[in-house]
């Protein structure tokens, strides 16, 4: 009962926040309300995870349909993820939206968006799920197009189209499930799904991967992501990338693992391969982006891929009844869901602060921001280390667990899984290295060195609420990195629910994989590092004594005055990788040299280069132009004459009358 009270309090707070926001006053108050609401839901989610499922009273819509809500450990975990991010994003938004023109509308949509995400993970029947899913998509569409620029409305259009293609698949999926089980409730479906024929199940799996994969941004369904996320205001991109795309993962887990209860081996292998491809290609495209937010958006593709690597491994193990191993993969995937929400949320907020301060998106014009915005810079650095999966931050633990589950793939009886899963591990290693390269670039070019433009030079640290919002996430990244036991204990009810096993044990700060006895203790690592730093300092002092530090210019090869233009650029930084992987990037470059006297006196040199985005160029554009051409043909029907249209209706009606009866 108490747990439900927390849920209703939270929902009430979000509702009132959205309504108060329409009054266009009390901007900070609105976000304080949403912050309190998310706190209340954090408590509710912990109840769900610890005390078990809760069924909430349903709201009847008609005699057949009803809004039915309820929570179990899976929803509890996703509520926890959403709430933790909403908590800090709402604090951040109080400062971020202060100077916004239509901030009343922003607060309204923000809270509605959060509510719809909670609704999606709490839905217990297909009607409720679909209605809230659509609400979420539509509200987020309005948020993407919030700035009402041409770019954002184009991004919004692509987002709307892609997300509705996904929704179409989800609707068909649910209709098939309904026709096979005769029930709309998830609870009944779970019981009755065992009787479904295997080919139908396979179809359901494919539909779920396409439908939810579109929302999650799997390659090749990712095209909306790098457009929509940069177009939205930064607090929203943080939420969209941090948690909204996770509802896709939630859908996959709910349908494939929970309702259908897993499937044959090829399901798991498919998920694993898609995960590997998404992670590697996602980070590769991210590396070539110089727009800070687009770069982060591509990293979302990468991280969803990493999450799927864990989940795919888990599915393979479940097929073979290796439940202890399945639990490890699932824990790895879910841990990464949480981690990605935190560090990607943090990075988007950081990017938002940078853009708020400099009004530029392109990192080639940034530089030296760490000195101008010390806190933002520090938190962005923490986010970068976390996303690269480096210790002692949170990304490390989940990637480590993913490696463990992939390596244990050698214990399956199937030769295909034995080969595929370590190769998935190699893909993860490649992803990790590319991500590190990418964030050395992102942080190094934008925050280090000298300012490359006037805007970057004039940047100022942002308001305290924005800094506080980022600080919370940065601290959480560290805490979840050095005390992984906290999270693994929280996730284990979910893994127990799905696989019936715990898989990973946590004792005295150690994470130990039960099956292979591989263990990890990030806290000890951090402690040892701190001890080593201190002893290094003491050692230096005792050997070298006190020495002064002289400040001077950077080494300029004897040519006086090094200018910011001489620094390495983001394009130059990534050039070796662009050339090495030219089969994937298909780079184009153009060099235009004009001479006064050829070939001796050069007047000007212009260089332009770009990469060809493979999927857009070879899959989406041809299909779009095909549809356009077909539509052009069909346009004959659209004469513009009202009477002709009425004629179509009349003919249809008559034909229906004749053939329909």
């Amino acid at each position, binding site marked *: 009962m108490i747990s439900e009270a927390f849920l209703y309090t939270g929902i009430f707070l979000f509702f009132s926040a959205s309504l108060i926001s329409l009054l266009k006053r009390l901007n900070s108050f609105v976000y304080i309300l949403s912050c309190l609401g998310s706190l209340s839901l954090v408590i509710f989610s912990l109840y769900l995870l610890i005390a078990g499922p809760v069924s909430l009273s349903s709201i009847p819509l008609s005699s057949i349909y009803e809004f039915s809500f309820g929570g179990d450990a899976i929803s509890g975990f996703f509520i926890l993820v959403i709430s933790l991010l909403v908590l800090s994003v709402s604090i951040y938004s109080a400062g971020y939206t202060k100077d916004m023109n239509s901030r009343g509308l922003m607060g309204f949509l923000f809270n509605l968006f959060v509510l719809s995400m909670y609704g999606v993970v709490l839905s217990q029947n297909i009607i409720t799920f679909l209605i809230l899913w659509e609400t979420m998509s539509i509200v987020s569409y309005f948020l993407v197009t919030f700035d009402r620029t041409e770019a954002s409305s184009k991004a919004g259009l692509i987002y709307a189209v892609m997300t509705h293609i996904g929704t179409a698949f989800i609707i068909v999926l649910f209709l098939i499930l309904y026709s096979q089980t005769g029930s709309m409730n998830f609870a009944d479906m779970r019981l009755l799904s065992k009787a479904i024929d295997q080919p139908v199940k396979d179809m359901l799996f494919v539909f779920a991967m396409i439908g939810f994969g579109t929302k999650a941004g799997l390659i090749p369904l990712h095209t909306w992501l790098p457009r929509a996320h940069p177009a939205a205001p930064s607090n929203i991109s943080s939420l969209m990338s941090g948690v909204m795309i996770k509802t896709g993962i939630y859908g996959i887990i709910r349908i494939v693992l929970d309702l259908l209860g897993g499937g044959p081996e090829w399901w798991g292998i498919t998920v694993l391969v898609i995960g590997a491809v998404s992670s590697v290609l996602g980070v590769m495209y991210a590396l070539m982006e110089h727009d800070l937010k687009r770069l982060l958006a591509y990293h979302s593709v990468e991280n969803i891929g990493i999450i799927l690597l864990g989940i795919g491994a888990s599915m393979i193990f479940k097929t073979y009844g290796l439940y202890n191993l399945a639990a490890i993969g699932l824990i790895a995937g879910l841990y990464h869901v949480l981690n990605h929400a935190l560090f990607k949320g943090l990075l988007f907020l950081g990017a938002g602060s940078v853009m708020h301060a400099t009004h530029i998106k392109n990192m080639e014009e940034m530089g030296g921001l760490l000195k101008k915005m010390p806190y933002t810079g520090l938190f962005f650095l923490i986010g970068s280390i976390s996303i690269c999966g480096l210790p002692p931050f949170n990304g490390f633990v989940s990637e480590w667990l993913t490696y463990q589950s992939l390596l244990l793939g050698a214990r399956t009886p199937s030769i295909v899984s034995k080969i595929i899963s370590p190769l998935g591990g*190699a893909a993860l290693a490649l992803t990790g290295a590319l991500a*590190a*390269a990418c*964030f050395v670039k992102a942080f190094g070019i934008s925050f280090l060195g000298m300012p490359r433009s006037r805007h970057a030079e004039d940047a100022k640290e942002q308001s305290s609420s924005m800094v506080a919002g980022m600080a919370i996430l940065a601290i959480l990244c560290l805490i979840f990195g050095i005390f992984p036991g906290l999270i693994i204990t929280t996730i284990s009810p979910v893994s127990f629910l799905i696989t019936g096993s715990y898989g990973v044990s946590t004792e005295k700060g150690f994470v130990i994989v039960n099956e292979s006895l591989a263990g990890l203790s990030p806290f000890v690592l951090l402690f040892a590092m701190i001890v080593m730093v201190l002893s290094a300092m003491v050692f230096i002092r005792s050997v070298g004594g006190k*020495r002064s530090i002289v*400040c001077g210019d*950077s080494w300029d090869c004897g040519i006086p005055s090094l200018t910011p233009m001489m620094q*390495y650029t983001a394009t130059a930084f990534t050039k070796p990788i662009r050339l090495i992987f030219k089969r994937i990037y298909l780079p184009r470059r153009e060099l235009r040299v004009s001479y006064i006297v050829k070939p001796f006196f050069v007047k000007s040199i212009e260089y332009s280069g770009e990469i060809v985005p493979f999927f857009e160029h070879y899959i989406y554009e041809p299909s779009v132009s095909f549809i356009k051409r077909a539509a052009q043909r069909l346009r004959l029907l659209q004469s513009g004459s009202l009477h002709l249209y009425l004629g179509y209706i009349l003919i249809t009606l008559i034909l229906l009358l004749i053939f329909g009866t």
Partner: protein
Amino acid sequence: MEYIQFLIILLFAPLVNGVIKKLKANMQGRIGPGIFQPYYDLIRLFKKDMVVSNVCSWVFRVAPYVVFSSTVVASMIVPVITTRLAFSHMADVIALIYILGLGIFFIALAGLDAGTAFGGEGSSREMTVAVLVEPMIMLTIFTAAISGGSTNLIKITELQGAIYTPSHVLALFAFIVAIVAETGRIPVDNPDTHLELTMIHEGMLLEYSGRYLALMEWAHYIKQMLLFTLAIDIFFPAGIAITFEPVALITALGIYALKILFMCFLMALIESTRAKLRFFQLPSLLGGAFVLAVLSLLSYVMMGK
């Protein structure tokens, strides 16, 4: 002993570098500096004042400490002469690679911090090499981990014994290429030059001086010896002590010294007989090694050994 065996790596790392230099000089018909030269260099650097660029932020100052401490912590979880390790629960080989990764990350950032083209060039190349090497090093480790049943280094070392299968040999070749790349040696990088067209590692350290430079160099030596030790632990662990008896320990120390000497000889041999590759020819070398690593994994899985 269980807490301090990493000190062996920490203290003897400069010596190993000195030995390699000496061997290399002898092979090339030179006398070369004494094998203790790296120690003198480090002490000299520790006693010098530092020049730090105005452009640099705190990242530049923090990086040497992060790089040094992460490398040392990585060496703490490696069995050197005995598998009785203080951190035996967490002696994880994947964690080790990632801890070293933290160091690479910070060196690369420090390279970009001064705002010079050399630093940026070094960072860019270092990260490119890392991109090519990391998957390969992971794959070789996977072969060992799968045969050892765990990623725990103690288990790998103890179970491995003296088994030599085709897959291990393939993995060893790949791993040696990885060591060459990671330690910045010919044919990937040239440790003895400051010519901007070729340098990778040195480019990032160009702005460092005094004690920061000393820390960076020392960390580099430690990393080199650490990778040698890792190769020894994974591929020919025979002779390592699994108890605490003094006799076993001393024997193990002797055997370990011989193995390290062999690794030094191998490195010197490679450096003396190969030429530095052009940067864009690296993918073919590293790609070849990657194929070896994949083959080793496949052959292990297919043949079961």
